[in-house]
């Protein structure tokens, strides 16, 4: 019995070790790259402020994998999941790391929206944007037999009576699924305060769309490709500037070509703590640019249906400020803003 017990405890310790592995090794491998002002001297931690398997996690893991396998950064890069509160738990963790140049994290639009909703103590200004690496886009889908032919049809009906049409998303009002739809409805002149939006975190929006409980599903375009292919649902529009590439994706019209002058990008990039050293920012920015241009990362993008969208630190900062303004305006209008 004791053996069995000891055995299972041992096996369990192994599991834990495996889960935390890859952090503390190779602290002093040679610095054989070209001379730089700053180079990492210990292993780097890349935090995905979400659980395993989601978009942030995949981005973090693929970034870490490409950076090490292509030999762009010699130090070990360990991906750590800090799930909770839509990212707020992970951000709080990073904010507590001071100015450590070894604690990076992945984030996207929720880094702006969650703090604006008052659900995170830290916002994008508390961190250093290093580089944006990829983008994906949102899409608005209806049942295949729905009456609306295009986005304008839908918005025309919504202008008459917004409350007749139910929009469904996975996340709560004020979060990405909701706001991305609102941006376009607002541009088209719909009274956005009257839009009836339900959130379905359990069963997901596709179910509600297919069984007729909701009329429009606002989601990431990658989430619905399969249902479009099987002709169960139709996408009225994609939120990108130009049509996307790919068999099904290229058939989805942009909102822009339907005369609604608005776009929405779900950008995803790498950030560091607030007071990060400029030299370190410059180092990572350059390395991430190098990574973004590799064949290996192009394959990763194709594999997950992401678009290339590289922005360096300064450009990223400006972009974030603009996006934050737009979100803030919308949330104020919807009276969802924290202030």
């Amino acid at each position: 019995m004791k053996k069995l017990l000891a055995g299972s405890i041992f096996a369990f310790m192994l599991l834990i070790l495996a889960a935390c592995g890859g952090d503390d090794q190779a602290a002093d491998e040679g610095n054989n790259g070209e001379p730089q002002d700053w180079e990492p001297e210990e292993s780097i931690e890349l935090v995905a402020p979400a659980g395993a398997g989601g978009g942030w996690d995949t981005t973090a893991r693929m970034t870490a994998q490409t950076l090490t396998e292509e030999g762009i950064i010699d130090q070990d890069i360990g991906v750590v999941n800090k799930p909770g509160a839509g990212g707020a738990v992970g951000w709080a963790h990073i904010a507590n790391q001071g100015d450590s140049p070894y604690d990076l994290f992945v984030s996207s639009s929720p880094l702006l929206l969650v703090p604006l909703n008052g659900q995170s103590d830290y916002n994008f200004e508390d961190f250093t944007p290093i580089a944006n690496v990829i983008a994906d886009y949102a899409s608005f889908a209806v049942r295949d037999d729905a009456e609306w032919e295009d986005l304008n049809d839908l918005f025309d009906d919504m202008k008459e009576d917004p409350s007749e049409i139910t929009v469904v998303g996975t996340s709560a009002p004020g979060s990405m699924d909701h706001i991305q739809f609102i941006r376009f409805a607002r541009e088209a002149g719909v009274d956005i305060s009257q839009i009836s939006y339900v959130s379905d975190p359990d069963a997901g929006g596709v179910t509600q769309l297919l069984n007729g409980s909701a009329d429009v599903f606002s989601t990431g375009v990658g989430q619905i490709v399969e249902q479009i292919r099987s002709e169960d649902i139709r996408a009225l529009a994609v939120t990108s500037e130009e049509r996307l590439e790919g068999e099904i994706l290229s058939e989805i019209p942009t909102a822009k070509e339907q005369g609604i002058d608005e776009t929405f990008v779900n950008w995803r990039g790498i950030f560091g703590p607030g007071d990060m050293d400029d030299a370190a920012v410059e180092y990572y920015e350059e390395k991430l640019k190098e990574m973004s241009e590799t064949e290996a990362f192009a394959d990763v993008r194709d594999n997950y249906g992401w678009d290339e969208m590289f922005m360096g630190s300064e450009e990223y900062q400006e972009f974030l400020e603009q996006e934050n303004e737009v979100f803030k305006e919308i949330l104020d209008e919807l009276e969802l803003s924290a202030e």
Partner: protein
Amino acid sequence: MGAIEGIITGFEVALSLEGILFVLLGVFVGTFIGMLPGLGPISAIAIMIPITYGMNPTLALVMMAGVYYGAVFGGSTSSILLNAPGISGTVASSFDGYPMAQNGQAGKALAIAAISSFIGGTISVILLMAFAPMLSSVAISFGPPAYFALMLLGLTAIASLSEGSTVKALISAVIGFMVATIGIDPQTGTARYTFGSTNLLDGIDFLIIALGLFAIAEVGYLIINRHKKSMTDAKQLGSLKLSKQDMKEIAGPSGRQSILGFVLGILPGAGATIASFISYISEKRLSKNPEKFGKGAVKGLAAPEASNNAATSGSFVPLLSLGIPGSGTTAVMLGAFLVLGVQPGPMLMGDNPDIFWGIIASMYIGNVFLLILNLPLIPYIARVLTVPRPLLISLVIVFSLIGVYAISFSTFDLYLLLAFGVIGFLMRMFAFPAPPFILAFILGGMMEQSFRQAMTSSNGDISIFFTNNISLVLIILSVLSFTFPIIKSMRQKKQEA
């Protein structure tokens, strides 16, 4: 490609040497992690995801599916032996499993759990294989009003779960409801009862409450009763062998509840928990000796075990054929698919028949492996109970802490666990039953959300619950289920009079 060819392809994958090896590896890891108190399929899958990066997607997914149902299969062990459920689906298994183990029938309880899990797993795979292409329409048939009605039906179980005072059971359920409202409200985005703390924004995880109210509270109870004689007697493990009478008793509930569990498992969001609770109460209602339930009834253990395993196979329907994750566990499972570059959805069956049918076919083999792995281990596992109490109690505490920490790596959750342990202990001292609390907590959140989704889409018209056929039938069933015990007791009184 027709379904028959698909099935053949599936078996080719599942019966290939690599296929068999990966199924074996998956179910072994799954069942092992599942057995540990506090750890369930979510932790098991999350631990395995990083390992699958770069693997052959078909084999990796066959393995991951094995981890998932393997963990559910093994999950009942800690419920039965230690009253420490690792997943919500096995809470109902502790109602009769734990008393059975305490009565010196640990071996028998584990054997019943393994056999009925096997029956549930196997029947549901047959159903899955036979009807998989048609079942996606079942998965989407439930709109918010129907979900609300289903939760209502589940709630009627509260009356059956209470021993003694109904008022105390109701108080316990109301507190469960209140705790379910903590966190960001998905319909408005408002934070409720979080007191400004980020730690509470996601609400309180089920596991914290289950381990607190059951495992930690039990530890407290054992400590204060350590000198009682009955406490030191629970060391016999009993015979593993099930009598013919036992097998007969298992057969009925396992068969029935496998089908019910499977159907409920198909519904995204309902899943194994609700299936196991509804199975438990329906068996109790059908039983001629309902008073034995909760004290170690064979049927009371067989029913939820068959049901939760069947529901696990059922949950593959929305996952594979619609790409919809119906629960926290299947959401992690969906993540595993996406990590491997496979997008589940309506086209999966046509585009990747090897993956779609391979996973289903591998479940037959997986279930057989699970039975073979679990049965011979039972005598060894059951001996956990012979560990001296002080040591066992400390182990339960340690594993509960690890299990909770593994959910979100937050120390705050550990304090919550201890707080719920104290609440559970006090409830026990004052004879407030814990099951209604946990049931109301599980159902309450979803019930509130589907109610409000339905009301939003009907613009506040309550008739939406009665114009929808499914919801109407379920509401009628709820009313019947609620009034049935009352009518029954009135009749009995009449007869006595």
